[in-house]
């Protein structure tokens, strides 16, 4: 396959990072539905953004690799289709949060979407093994296509690097989300106290 195979070392970790973001969105959303707090809402929103960002990377780098490996940029393969569906779900979450307002009802609706969206993750993961298609199963318990130990080392290091990267991004984004919530409440309090002449949004 040649040098294009190197895409593997950030295509697969990007998919893993998308899973991490989606899992964070699920945890935050479920926690928010059980007991609403700003941190849980911020975690859900941060997880959805990370899922979209890394999902976009997966859905772009994959077809670039496929152009060489398969001769086509895209096929409606189960893995590709379910991955696209997952990204669209989290894009819908972000659009809802961006344009649907920031009230309690809107947050709960988005949290429900965040919980349901996670149901697609095991479907993506097992789609290759259960259904026929073009996408290979590389990382399996039996070793799959990682024949050379250097490949395993490189992929393992990539997974570690992307894990640390996603955790750092989540932390930074959650802090930003919590700060936004606190500031919005402070602005509302200022209006209620008559300190600010602007009306409430």
């Amino acid at each position: 396959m040649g040098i294009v195979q190197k895409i593997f070392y950030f295509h697969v970790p990007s998919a893993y990072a998308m899973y991490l973001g989606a899992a964070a969105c699920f945890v935050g959303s479920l926690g928010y539905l059980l007991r609403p707090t700003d941190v849980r809402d911020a975690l859900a929103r941060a997880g959805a953004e990370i899922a979209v960002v890394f999902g976009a990377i997966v859905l772009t780098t994959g077809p670039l690799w496929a152009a060489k490996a398969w001769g086509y940029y895209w096929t409606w393969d189960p893995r590709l289709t379910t991955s696209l569906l997952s990204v669209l779900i989290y894009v819908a979450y972000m659009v809802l949060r961006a344009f649907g307002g920031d009230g309690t009802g809107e947050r709960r609706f988005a949290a429900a979407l965040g919980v349901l969206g996670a149901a697609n993750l095991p479907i993506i993961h097992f789609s290759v093994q259960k259904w026929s298609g073009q996408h290979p199963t590389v990382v399996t318990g039996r070793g799959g296509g990682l024949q050379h130990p250097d490949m395993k080392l490189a992929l393992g290091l990539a997974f570690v690097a992307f894990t640390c990267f996603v955790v750092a991004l989540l932390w930074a984004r959650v802090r930003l989300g919590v700060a936004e919530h606190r500031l919005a409440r402070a602005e509302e309090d200022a209006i209620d106290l008559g300190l600010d002449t602007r009306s409430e949004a």
Partner: protein
Amino acid sequence: MRNLLLEPVTPSAQPETASPPDRATAFQPVQGGGEHRNGAMLMVEAYVVLWVVLMAWLLLLWRRQRGLVQRLDDLERTIDRAAEKAARPASGA
């Protein structure tokens, strides 16, 4: 010219005998596939996509944080003005 972007999966475009374990360990070329591109250029494009998407998101986060800082500055100014107004009648009495 064939449309390489959206090509439906057809039986002729798939290896007919490849099971999932076979696909995991062997390169299975598509039969009747389209024109192949330069692999090195594709890899470079993939790296560019990775960096552009990540940098774009970080830029959006930076702009969001800057907006937050501006709102915070506005709020602090509002509070300072209110505090001055509250202090003036007491000093003028």
